């Protein structure tokens, strides 16, 4: 399960807006977000939190208790719809990972997206995702070659 679509906001003549990077309709199909940043010990720190979309399509995250430690840091927000079902396995797989920074806004944390990566198996079926990932598999095998040859 890795990225299907990847957009980066920097590097162009102007930064992309939130709406150009992140489709609010797609975000609205997720129930909550996982916010992750790097803590003072150098480990990733993740926390689940609810969110809502402003009238302008901006992502407003509910403040988790740990929010002061993420201010100023680069954060990743995962929206995930890979959900377990009682009979085993899971429902339709889709997720969106948005990187950016957050700022305080009317009691919420407003996400300022900079990059997006996402996968939706209804758009890109799993077998096609695997086919698209073959170069990464080849690269990994090649990286192991010296130890195999030794």
């Amino acid at each position, binding site marked *: *399960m*890795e990225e299907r679509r990847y957009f980066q906001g920097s590097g162009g003549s102007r930064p992309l807006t939130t709406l150009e990077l992140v489709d609010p309709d797609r975000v609205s199909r997720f129930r*909550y977000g*996982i916010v*992750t*940043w*790097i*803590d003072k*010990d*150098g*480990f*990733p*720190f*993740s*926390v*689940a*939190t609810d969110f809502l979309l402003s009238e302008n399509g901006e992502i407003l995250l*509910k*403040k*988790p*208790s*740990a929010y002061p430690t993420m201010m100023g840091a*680069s*954060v*990743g927000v*995962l929206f*995930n719809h*890979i*959900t*377990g*079902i*009682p*009979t*085993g*396995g*899971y429902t339709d797989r889709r*997720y969106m*990972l948005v*990187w950016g920074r957050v700022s305080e806004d009317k009691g919420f944390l407003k996400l300022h997206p900079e990059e997006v990566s996402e996968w939706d198996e209804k758009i890109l079926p799993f*077998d096609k995702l*695997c086919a698209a*990932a*073959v170069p*990464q*598999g080849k*690269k*990994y*095998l090649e*990286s*192991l070659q010296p*130890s195999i040859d030794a």
Partner: protein
Amino acid sequence: MQAPSWVQEVFEHYLICEFTSIDNGKPVTFPLLFFYDNNSTKFVVTSSILFSRKIEHMKKNPKVSLLFSNPEGSGVEKHVVLVQGVAKIEDSDLDHGWERYLPMWRKKEPYIDGFLAAREQFAWFWKRIVVEVEPRKILAWKNGDTSKAPEAVGL
């Protein structure tokens, strides 16, 4: 591990975790199936070589985290648990090294055998790397209320 029973239930019954590796200082999080053996108190995920960028990240920086936030389908109540730990990569036997986790995998995804039957068709998907995570710190939010401070779980 001195985890209360509600935290143990999360580890034993949740289907997936949100797994984060670090790519040049940037957190990269994906939903992943995980395996937990309460005898070893370590967490394991496996990765196909096709989706091995996270493995490359961990070879450079082994600090990772696993968040358990989604109880759906697990039959247990909602709690949120964060495990921060150090990842150890095992990729010396891509074809068979991961197979020792197949019984746990089968329990979580009963139809995995059907997928395994097509192993030749998805040969590189089944070349898998094992990642063993040794916990260094565990924080837990009972009832999933992350607006409150988490409680630390003794290792």
